[in-house]
């Protein structure tokens, strides 16, 4: 049974876990993380996030807005964000493309906000109800110019909840937009779920209490460096600016500004890179996976164990900034890194850059609109292990 009211849901959940849809879990995570402002535009397969928040936000004193398109949606979120609100918007491929210019504005004006992109098959209208991971590099490089990006990837319903919370936290702490990627299957699947358990989840990358919001919304208002409407008369601009907030053409200052934007993200990789390793140190083949493919990878691991194959799984929750340390650490000890993903090898290219010196990176892309089955991964693993043994 699925309930419309998440507040009802929350009461129920105290007793036992319930069947919840991924998109609704995302909305619930947003509410629990203190998001009180949503502006969006309907698009399959993300509309349920919007529909749930349309219901729930007014009940907790928040603002829900349906805008005329995705450009207006993200701009409204930026406006709200600059007044100290915690703002979130949700969309899918075509809408995410429209948001790109404003996303760059949010980066340069350091406006914290969360963009959830429930990926569908593209380009363009593509196949709207089909899962895909085709927007991975767009999430990294979609907006023009050199810019940092924080990109998370959810693989199940509980992830939709906890990674939404993590995204809110990262956005506030690093004062930058954070993209949460899901795909049609993760957004629409229903799984048993309890916020309690999802929030207490442990990762190999360290204890990460997803339920703890980094800065309370009230506090954001206190520490906001260029908050509008707080009698500080700030100036916020999409131009390159110096510490006064006003534009500058000074080469030194411009360079310093761009480096600072980067460094605040890249220098905190240890904090930002969330991952989980299964069967750590026991594999000759590492399946590196994220999003819905990570589910298949975990299932493939169980199958491989039954066959006695030496496999480990590196499940990435943070795609960008690149989790260089952990990928290289694993790369040093495995013969192959196998990367199943629902695109033509977008992330495999990134992994290759990081790991090529130590291991053979094998891309396993699929773009027919169906998921990668555990059995398919297993077959590739068997092939690779066979190759390894024959060397």
């Amino acid at each position, binding site marked *: 049974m699925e309930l419309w009211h998440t507040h009802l849901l929350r009461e129920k959940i105290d007793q036992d876990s319930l069947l919840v849809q991924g998109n609704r879990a995302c909305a619930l995570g947003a509410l629990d993380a203190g998001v009180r402002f949503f502006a969006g*535009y309907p698009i*399959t397969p993300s*509309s349920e996030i919007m*529909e749930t928040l349309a219901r729930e936000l*007014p009940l907790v004193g928040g603002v829900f807005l349906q805008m*005329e*398109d995705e450009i207006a949606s993200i701009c409204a979120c930026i406006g709200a964000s600059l007044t100290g609100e915690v703002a979130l918007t949700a969309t899918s491929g*075509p809408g995410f493309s429209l948001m790109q210019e404003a996303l760059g504005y949010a980066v340069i004006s350091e406006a914290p906000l969360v963009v959830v992109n429930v990926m569908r098959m593209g380009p*363009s*209208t593509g196949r709207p109800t089909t899962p895909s991971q085709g927007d991975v590099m767009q999430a990294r490089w979609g907006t023009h110019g050199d810019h940092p990006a924080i990109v998370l990837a959810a693989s199940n319903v509980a992830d939709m909840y906890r990674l939404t919370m993590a995204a809110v936290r990262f956005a506030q702490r690093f004062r930058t937009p954070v993209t949460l990627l899901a795909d049609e299957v993760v957004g629409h699947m229903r799984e048993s779920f309890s916020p309690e358990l999802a929030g207490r989840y442990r990762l190999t990358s360290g204890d990460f209490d997803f339920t703890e919001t980094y800065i309370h919304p009230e506090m954001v208002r206190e520490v906001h460096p260029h908050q509008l409407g707080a009698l500080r008369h700030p100036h916020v601009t999409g131009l390159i600016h110096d510490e006064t907030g006003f534009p500058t053409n000074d080469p030194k200052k411009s360079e310093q500004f761009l480096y600072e934007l980067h460094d605040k993200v890249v220098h905190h990789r240890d904090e930002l890179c969330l991952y989980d390793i299964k069967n750590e140190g026991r594999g000759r083949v590492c399946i590196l996976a994220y999003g819905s493919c990570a589910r298949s990878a975990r299932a493939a691991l169980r199958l491989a164990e039954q066959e006695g194959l030496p496999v480990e799984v590196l499940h990435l929750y943070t795609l960008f900034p690149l989790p260089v340390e952990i990928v290289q650490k694993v790369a040093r000890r495995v013969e192959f890194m196998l990367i199943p993903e629902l695109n033509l090898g977008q992330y495999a290219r990134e992994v290759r850059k990081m790991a090529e010196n130590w291991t053979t990176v094998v891309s396993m892309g699929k773009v027919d609109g169906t998921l990668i089955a555990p059995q398919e991964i297993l077959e590739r693993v068997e092939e690779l292990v066979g190759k390894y043994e024959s060397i």
Partner: protein
Amino acid sequence: MDWCTEGTPSLVTAPVVTRHPRALESVATHYCPGCGHGITQRLLANALDELGVRERTVGVAAIGCSVLIYNYLDVDFQELPHGRAPAGATGIKRARPDLVVFTYQGDGDLAAIGTAEIVHAAARSENITVIFVNNCVYGMTGGQMAPTTLVGQRSETCREGRDPKLHGYPVRVAEMLATLDGAVYLERVSVTHPENVKAAYRAIRKAFAYQLEDRGFSLVEVLSPCPTNWGMTPSEAVRWIDEVVSRYYPLGVIKDCAPVHFAHLLEHPPAESPGAKLHGFHYETVAGPEADESGRLTRPQQPFGRRGGRWTAISSKDFQPESRPESGSQAESGGAAGSAGDPTPEDP
């Protein structure tokens, strides 16, 4: 039944039995029972046949349930990103002025994300024809609020009914475009009853005829039922258009810059639909917001459509005789001020 005429280039119509238009594919549509898209597309096909332009017509489809028109009309088709059809149509028409170019767009597509494109196509007076299917809702994505959703109407993103305080007011597209000098012909029709359907056909045919005579931008707004997302049966949906929607969006010619030149196309008197009596810029707000003592707008008490968060049909209570005008004459005399969708006090 002139609108059933088969593809003769002559504009002189003869009553014939229903024949399948050449420009319409012989397939069953996927549209929901009671949907207005099918009727509108049939009328389009008839008009293209009658004007004899099927072979040189290019349709530009929008994103929405409207997009599936490419399955049903036997003309060249292009789809464009959500809202951008008028820009693509502009490109086609400017590159090949000999082609007959039309866009076929829903209300979410045209009046929300595509507002800039439609306004500027009209301002440039592009010589194209726009068929604008207004069903007051985002159909394809599952019934969210559209810019055209009526005050008080329930949708997936305004489940208590559209509240002007939160969501603003519905957009009357044809009236808005009428302020632009580039817009030559704007008419609003509906596809509910045979009389209305006939009027719709005449409007569509005329819009294409204007294009053939290089008149510039024309748009026909079609009030079209979406029973699925309104939570109504097809017949309730038709009634809702006749009794409520077409009172907020009055039927008839909104603007026609060249009626004299085209008298030969207008062999028929204006449609005798009740809404047609509300021509021009005189309309009343139905189910509109009520002002309280302080003058603030309050939420209408009787939203239409889905009830109680479930996908149930609207009950006949919403159509209580005392809460709607007796007949067209009452509406005409201006006596309708306190009628129509006004919440009845004894209603809970």
